[in-house]
């Protein structure tokens, strides 16, 4: 299949957005839903076709002379030309990760489209209000995300960053009449916007010194030349300019990473993601688990060669990633709202990917990378892929459960295993996958990541293994609390049960993928320079990680399989710690304080006062003063002829005298 079909992959969702958005109001709800599904189906098929063609086909320029898989720019028209050199183009570029992302996005999106047909309608199959809007926004998001991954230049990525930001804003705020949702959507948008500000600054700096936005100049070797030299040359045009000690490109890349961190919810910009769970659960599955949140990872991966050269930036990413992984995992251990818990696990997993990218170039030098330290990069992308699948699965299961019991709190669930076996089974698969139990998908990718971390330093490895263990623990905690723990008492009019096929089918499909995805030839396809890096399973690392995972699972089993006091005891024992973790270590409070107390009360209000009082007051004062003066001098005109004449005479004489003084002396 010709790669140029990618255009259709992007165009169809866009069309669906306008079509459903404008014409949808006139159509029936069901109809719009199915139209959306069909449109997405076509997109998915095309996307698979294109991706597979890119990976396994030949003769469309995807294979370089040395057999490395290289970027193919399908088309690339000018969109906005700042100067002769600095031109923003709207193009489509396929390279391994872009192709991989095409598959991820379309798959998950497809599943979500289908799933939503059931989810967005009540038990009697009546679709909710705003169904059309929902599908239009889904299409819009899909379009933006696809546009992001196939971007040919940094600025296009920025543009689609904004687009996905907005569509996520719209979808989080889908239930726009509930204040919580509105607040969450606002929060999500503004936090990511703040990050995007840094992204923009990074772009400005980088483009100013390198004189281009385009990746093929920035990072990819023009037809097969060694990309690292190219990147280096692009950067070196910065002429080693430095700012506050660091080279400007280091600054630029750091800023760009912050931009990514905002989308990927890295600490401390993660606070929007848990709240984003206010949106419909399928949306969380699509946007806040599988696709949008990995945009940051994707961005860093996109600029990987640059980061390799700018070690300073890499170090920052490494630290942030490692910390976030642990931090989020810790919080996930105590959350009672299952979606929140999943959200934090997402954060933690994305942090895994970031870290693995960052460790990827452990001891800098290019040779090392050629010598296989590109592993981290590959692992990260691989994990991105697998994680997307099983995390989407988990979220969709959660959605099914919530749809059944009308609550997010695991206290309202417990022992659902009997009621919804399929869901339970699918959820279990997801948990096993994320816990990293072979042969499930998560095992393979996480194993590679750990290997990469160990190769950077034993400390990093141990740290990340520990987090992996926590992951296993909290996932199974959730699982047991939902499906076992104690007998479920029914207090809704009809007992919870497996949901209609539209919702169950996606679970099954994703479950299967989560099982087999691990066997995808990632090492062969996702090498950072398009070359096949030959990896083999590192049994020591794999063994230990599996061991740790099992320990975590066991612990969870011990604590949460059957109802017992142990959890409460522990909670009472470490109440402070538990409380802090439950309150997400008070990050939200901190943000509240900064935004409301400092910025709102401390800056905006005074400025507004100043404007009305001082500046406006000044002009009013001028007017008042004139009026006062006019009133004050009225006595000059007191109506008596003699005073008139007096003024006249004095005036004339004064005129004469002053002039005499001036002229004669």
């Amino acid at each position: 299949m010709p790669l140029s079909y990618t255009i259709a992959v992007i165009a169809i969702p866009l069309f669906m957005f306008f079509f459903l958005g404008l014409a949808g109001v006139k159509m029936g709800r069901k109809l719009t839903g199915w139209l959306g599904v069909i449109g997405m189906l076509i997109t998915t098929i095309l996307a698979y076709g294109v991706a597979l063609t890119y990976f396994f086909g030949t003769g469309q320029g995807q294979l370089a002379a040395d057999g490395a898989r290289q970027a193919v720019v399908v088309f690339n028209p000018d969109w906005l030309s700042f100067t002769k050199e600095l031109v923003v183009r709207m193009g489509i570029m396929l390279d391994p990760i872009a192709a991989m992302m095409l598959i991820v996005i379309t798959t998950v999106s497809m599943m979500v489209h289908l799933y939503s047909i059931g989810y967005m309608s009540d038990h009697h199959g009546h679709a909710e209000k705003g169904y059309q809007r929902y599908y239009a926004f889904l299409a819009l998001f899909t379009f933006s995300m696809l546009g992001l991954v196939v971007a040919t230049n940094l600025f296009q990525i920025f543009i689609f960053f904004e687009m996905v930001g907005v569509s996520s804003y719209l979808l989080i705020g889908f239930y726009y009449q509930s204040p919580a949702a509105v607040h969450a959507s606002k929060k999500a948008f503004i936090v990511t916007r703040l990050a995007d500000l840094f992204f923009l600054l990074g772009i400005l700096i980088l483009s100013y010194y390198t004189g281009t936005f385009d990746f093929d100049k920035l990072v990819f070797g023009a037809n097969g030349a060694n990309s690292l030299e190219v990147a280096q040359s692009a950067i070196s045009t910065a002429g080693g300019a430095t700012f506050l000690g660091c080279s400007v490109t280091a600054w630029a890349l750091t800023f760009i990473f912050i931009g990514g961190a905002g989308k990927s919810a890295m600490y401390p910009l993660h606070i929007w993601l848990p709240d984003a769970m206010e949106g419909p659960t399928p949306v969380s599955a699509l946007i806040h688990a599988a696709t949008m949140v990995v945009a940051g990872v994707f961005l860093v991966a996109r600029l990987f060669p640059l980061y390799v050269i700018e070690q300073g930036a890499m170090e920052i990413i490494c630290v942030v990633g490692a910390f976030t992984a642990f931090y989020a995992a810790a919080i996930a251990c105590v959350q009672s709202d299952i979606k929140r818990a999943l959200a934090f696990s997402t954060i933690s997993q994305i942090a895994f990917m970031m870290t693995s990218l960052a460790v990827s170039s452990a001891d800098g030098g290019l040779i090392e990378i050629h010598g296989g330290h590109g592993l981290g990069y590959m692992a990260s992308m691989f994990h991105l892929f697998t994680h997307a699948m099983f995390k989407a699965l988990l979220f969709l299961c959660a959605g099914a459960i919530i749809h059944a019991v009308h609550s997010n709190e695991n206290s309202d669930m417990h022992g659902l295993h009997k009621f919804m076996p399929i869901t339970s089974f699918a959820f279990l698969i997801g948990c096993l996958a994320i816990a990293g139990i072979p042969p499930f998908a998560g095992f393979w990718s996480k194993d590679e990541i750990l290997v990469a971390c160990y190769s950077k330093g034993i400390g990093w490895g141990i740290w990340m293994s520990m987090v992996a263990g926590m992951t296993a623990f909290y996932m199974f905690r959730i699982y047991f609390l939902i499906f076992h723990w104690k007998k479920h008492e029914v207090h809704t009019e009809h007992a919870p049960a497996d949901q209609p096929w539209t919702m169950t089918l996606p679970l099954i499909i994703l479950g299967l993928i989560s099982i087999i995805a691990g066997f995808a030839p990632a090492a062969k396809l996702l090498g950072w320079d398009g070359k096949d890096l030959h990896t083999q399973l590192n049994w020591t690392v794999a063994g230990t990680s599996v061991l740790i995972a099992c320990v975590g699972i066991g612990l969870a089993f011990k604590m949460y399989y059957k109802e017992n006091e142990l959890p409460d005891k522990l909670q009472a024992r470490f109440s402070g710690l538990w409380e802090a973790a439950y309150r997400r270590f008070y990050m939200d409070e901190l943000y509240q304080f900064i935004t409301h107390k400092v910025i709102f009360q401390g800056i905006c209000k005074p400025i507004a006062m100043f404007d009305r009082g001082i500046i406006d007051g000044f002009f009013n004062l001028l007017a008042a003063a004139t009026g006062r003066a006019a009133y004050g001098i009225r006595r000059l005109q007191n109506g008596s002829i003699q005073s008139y004449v007096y003024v006249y005479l004095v005036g004339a004489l004064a005129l004469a005298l002053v002039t005499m003084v001036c002229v004669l002396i």
Partner: protein
Amino acid sequence: MNLTLLMYLVPSLIMFGCGVYGFLTRKNMIAIMISLELMLNSVDLNFVVFNRYLFPGQMDGMFFTLFAIAIAAAETAVALAIIINVFRVARKVDINELIKLKF
């Protein structure tokens, strides 16, 4: 004894001053008219004297004086007429009557 220019100018200026003083202090409109006449006449005196002493050649000053006297007469006539009008209405010729229009 022969009279110099100053011996005329100084009195005329004094006269003018008196006129101004009278104008500014008097309350009676007629008195004010008289002081105005004083001022005008002092000016006439100036002209005549300048002509006589400095430029005896031509008679410009003299003629000017004649016209000025005529004008002064006309002014007085109009002024008196108006004063009478005011008197008709206000029953007074006090200048302080005329302060209705002000500010």
